[in-house]
């Protein structure tokens, strides 16, 4: 595999992973246009942009645009992230030029038809209502809003009041401000020619307006304003949702890889501490887990579980105990397993072109360059028990942000 990286003349950052013999090619595009960059009067507008981009361009209407993707068998998916909007496409290698051209057309010459904009707002309002039927997603919204401060604590769907005042004008404005070449990062993986890909991208995005000076500043990332607190949100549910978080490492911190291993020890597999102590030994939950959330700057460690109300306090106490005692009795075999999990998962996914492209675009987002897998795995493999202890000492868990959602409050919600 060869990694080719370049900045195109118009400012787009491109990484091409040239992997011979691959039967598919994958295109990943990230645009710094996520919901953290919304005008606060129009929360939810980033998601509306994502939904309406595929509803028509200067050349064709929405159906014709989608049919054009189908004609070459290219999948196309998109998401609204906190800092970026993401566009992802899988196709046979011979159709990559058309796939790039279609993305260029969609992202740089959208027509945002009036009716599509109206429907997008209506559907977002309905999705907000559907969110009430999705306890785990609703809990995420609550913990982010509580723990992250603004603007990182927003939710992609926005709020009812802000959606009701948002329409085509605001959708166009968000697109115009954020869809500049300098705010775009692109990764392509497969049996492809980097120079050809670069030429195709330049041609495809040639009509985008030039970047503003403010783009560079905005792309430096936004800070978490951590708020330790406990809040309970009453809701009629069979299970109580528990979420807690505390500040962790940034993706560019030297101890970022140590954190990855620490999370692996807590929650990497069925022998992880949380699964063992909460589920296997006590039968308190079906689901329990720990993970990190990494904005461009900063990081947060999350722990979550869902359980019936009578088990809530025991579950919570066990979570707190396990997170707290990690530094005290860590064994080498636990450490080895956590490392093995990270290494094997990276190696097995190496067979998957789509996973390669996704990892490359993530690297562009955090580091501005692709870091070879071997380099990352070497850093993971070098983590020691001492590193984990130092990491835990540097990230105290005595100030937590905690949310419960369900019929019952915690008897003793530990907080700031």
């Amino acid at each position, binding site marked *: 595999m060869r990694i080719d990286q370049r900045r195109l003349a118009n400012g787009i950052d491109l990484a091409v992973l040239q992997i011979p013999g691959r039967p598919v090619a994958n295109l990943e595009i990230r645009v710094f246009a996520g919901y953290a960059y919304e005008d606060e009067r129009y929360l939810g507008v980033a998601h509306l942009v994502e939904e309406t981009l595929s509803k028509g361009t200067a050349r064709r209407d929405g159906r014709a645009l989608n049919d054009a993707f189908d004609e070459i068998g290219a999948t196309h998916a998109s998401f609204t992230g906190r800092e970026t909007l993401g566009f992802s496409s899988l196709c046979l290698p011979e159709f990559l030029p058309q796939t790039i051209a279609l993305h260029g057309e969609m992202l740089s010459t959208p027509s945002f038809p009036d009716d599509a904009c109206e429907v997008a707002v209506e559907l977002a309002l309905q999705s907000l209502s559907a969110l009430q*039927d999705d306890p785990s997603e609703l809990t995420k919204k609550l913990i982010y809003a509580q723990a992250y401060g603004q603007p990182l604590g927003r939710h992609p769907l926005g709020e009812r009041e802000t959606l009701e005042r948002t329409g085509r004008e605001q959708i166009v404005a968000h697109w115009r401000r954020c869809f500049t070449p300098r705010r775009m990062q692109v990764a392509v993986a497969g049996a492809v020619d980097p120079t050809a890909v670069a030429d195709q991208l330049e041609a495809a995005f040639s009509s985008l307006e030039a970047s503003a000076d403010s783009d560079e500043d905005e792309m430096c990332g936004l800070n978490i304003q951590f708020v330790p607190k406990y809040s309970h949100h009453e809701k009629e*549910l069979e299970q109580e949702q528990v979420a807690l978080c505390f500040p962790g490492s940034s993706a560019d911190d030297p101890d970022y890889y140590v954190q990855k291993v620490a999370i692996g020890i807590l929650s990497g597999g069925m022998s992880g501490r949380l699964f063992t102590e909460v589920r296997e030994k006590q039968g308190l939950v079906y689901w329990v887990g720990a993970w990190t959330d990494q904005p461009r700057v900063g990081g947060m460690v999350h722990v979550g579980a869902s359980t019936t109300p009578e088990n809530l306090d025991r579950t919570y106490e066990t979570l707190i105990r396990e997170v707290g005692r990690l530094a005290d009795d860590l064994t080498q075999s636990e450490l080895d397993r956590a490392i*093995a999990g990270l290494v094997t998962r990276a190696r097995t996914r190496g067979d998957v072109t789509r996973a390669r492209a996704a990892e490359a675009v993530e690297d562009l987002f955090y580091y501005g360059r692709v870091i070879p897998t071997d380099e990352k795995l070497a850093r993971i493999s070098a983590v020691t028990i001492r590193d984990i202890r130092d990491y835990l000492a540097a990230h105290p868990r005595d100030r937590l942000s905690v949310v419960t959602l369900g019929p019952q409050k915690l008897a003793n919600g530990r907080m700031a």
Partner: protein
Amino acid sequence: MSVTSPFVVEQLSNGLTVVIEVMPHVQSAACGFLARTGARDDPPELAGVSHFLEHMMFKGTALRTWEQVNVEFDEMGSYYNAYTSKDRTFYYGWVQTGDLQRQLELLADMMRSTLPQDQFDMEKNVVLEEIAMSRDDLGSVAYDYLHEQLYAGTPLAWPVLGWERTIKDMTREGMWEYFTRRYAPNNLILVVAGNVEPTDVLRMAQRACGDWPHVDSLGTDRRSPPFRTGVATQQVDRFRQQAVLLAFPSVGATDSLYETAEATAAILGGENSRFYWNIVQKGISPRAGAFHEEYQDFGMIVLFGLCEPENCEKLLDAMREEAARLAADGPQEKELRRVKNLRRTSLANESEAPFYRLGQLADDMDYRGRPRPAEDRLAAVDAVSAESVAEYLRRWPITGPGYLVSVGPRVWPA
């Protein structure tokens, strides 16, 4: 495409089927055991036993405690799990090529679980938590309610997870009796894919599984359930939205019209489909679609949507209107091309990783008794035509009353 078959299929003398796909281009290997048993094989008083048993298979053997099972998976860094459906249970692990033997031996040992009593008692709580979790999910509640009503009185009626009552009342002895019958080697398939040497894999399989005793009577009595028409409503106040599902009988997985049935569901309710443009993009429902659910012997096609309670009538009318229009006018050429083109891409993607291939191999072995090369599967979807869709819709109409269920805060239809 290669001209030599990448597949090896063998049967051990005890009846265990082994299927291997050689993938010389990959760095990893995956293996799994398919037990040809699922919720439709649960005895009624043990509803949920297949799924509960799946949990118990991780809970200890003559050689390993549950902790050792978990530790060993994680020592390899395996990507592993298991799932239970209405008609099968599948256990799998995806590892680096050099760990295949260890992964296979671990999974094989798990297939001879001792179902320890203390673990049985503990895991019962976990299954009850899983049931509680599924009841907080409108989609799961609606899916289970459709089966409960439509297939009432048959083994397809209960949820894969079982009922709270049958789980609470279940004994280890009842599970053991079921386990020894249904996990006989002659009811299991070992599936392996990766950069492997088939003779090595067969040797591993023989050593790990060769002494499992064949069982003459598996106690299989699968019957296709009758399909009724009807209407059922479940009022659940705590949900905001209403789920509306409309089901029609369809073909099974081995029927010659199976690919046509799948294509019909995709044209109605997949990506860039009629439902997307004429229901979702009309603001009637944020999520509407169609799926085909198939077993070896029968199937059904389900049109569904989630909506604001006041939109139920509009949603149902729109779904029926789309079904009627497709039946009357047939598919457009471009809709048929979409299905075929996307399948080409997905087959290429599937060929990249052993784990992706594993599920398809298990599916082919279970339903067809043989692995299918990508060329055959592509040919099957290429054979879908306006004529085959017309024939399918003539034999399996989606324009009648069907079976309608609605779950949510509104009592509708009254």
